[in-house]
């Protein structure tokens, strides 16, 4: 009797593993508005001779829509305001905002619109989309990892590499790497 109960529990546990993920995804289905509180969009650019410099965008907005039945039909929209770039060094911030890099005065928004979402594991997905900056649009891909879901709040850890030269921001290469490493924490609130 005792053995049967244990066996049953073990079977249930085995079943529960994938079921749990599926349930989580089911729970996650819905529309989320990305909130600046709890979110961060950080980036790093490597430097010749080692090291690099880090920055972050303080202002952005976006939505995450997770499809109930088909994760592949989920969508992510993100708008970043390059004017809000901050590196901790005022002179570098001014340089980044200027027409040398973002030209924030004439191109106040950087936009990402997902075109496909491919689930790569229980908690990860590859998000492909179109990134527009300074009037140029290219396909980019990011890896999203589900970091938590509690109440109506969902959290993703998103990473990806973008070649800045394609967006007319190649200033300083090869002194500074052409590859921009993004590391984002996106917190979405349902509704």
């Amino acid at each position: 009797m005792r053995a049967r109960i244990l066996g049953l529990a073990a079977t249930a546990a085995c079943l529960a593993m994938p079921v749990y993920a599926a349930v989580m995804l089911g729970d996650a289905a819905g529309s989320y508005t990305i909130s600046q509180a709890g979110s961060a969009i950080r980036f790093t650019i490597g430097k010749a001779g080692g090291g690099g410099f880090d920055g972050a965008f303080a202002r952005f907005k976006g939505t995450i829509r997770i499809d109930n039945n088909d994760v592949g039909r989920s969508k992510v929209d993100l708008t970043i305001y390059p004017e809000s770039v901050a590196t901790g060094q005022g002179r570098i911030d001014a340089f980044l905002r200027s027409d040398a890099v973002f030209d924030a005065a004439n191109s106040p928004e950087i936009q990402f619109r997902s075109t496909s979402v491919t689930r790569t594991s229980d908690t990860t997905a590859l998000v492909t989309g179109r990134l527009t900056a300074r009037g140029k649009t290219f396909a980019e891909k990011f890896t999203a990892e589900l970091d938590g879901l509690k109440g109506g709040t969902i959290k993703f850890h998103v990473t990806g590499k973008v070649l800045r030269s394609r967006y007319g921001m190649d200033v300083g290469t090869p002194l500074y790497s052409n590859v921009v490493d993004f590391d984002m924490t996106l917190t979405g609130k349902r509704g």
Partner: protein
Amino acid sequence: MVQQRWSHMRPLTNTPTRYSWATILLHWLIALIFIGQLVLGFVMVRIESQRAAFELIQLHKSFGFLLLGLIILRIAWRLGNKAPPLPPSVGALERRTAPLAHLALYAFQLALPLSGWALVSVSTLEIPSMPFNLFVMPNLPLIESDAAEGFWAAVHWYLAYAGAALVALHVAAALRHHFLLRDQVLTRMITPSSAGE
């Protein structure tokens, strides 16, 4: 036979009365870069476009390191090669001051790139130096701070203005020799020594 053939060619080193082509080449190459650097330095901090300013500053750094290498070579060359004496017509005052002016020119050509190197080394912008995108030039072992950056920027500026004044004096003296005194002081820095001189 070989000896004889060589004697017909222009010697690499200075002769007692004339500069060699190597000395002349170094002189004009450095002159071109030095004056170019003064102009570039003046323009790069006034230009409107931040992008152009950034690129021009990197170019200024590249030429600065090249200049530093060339001037070290030139000083070594000068120490190993006696300069021909001034013509007998040159007065006592110039005979005493000209070597001092030349010494000062060497000192400025050395101090200017070094102060620029110190400036980029202490700058809180931490922009690496990569002469002509060829290799990473390490920073001087100095501690970075806004205060140190301000100090070295000022030193670099004052040296540049004083250096520009010194170059102007040097050019004026050369032109005076050529057009007023009508001696060989300028032309011997243009035409290399040849065999038999």
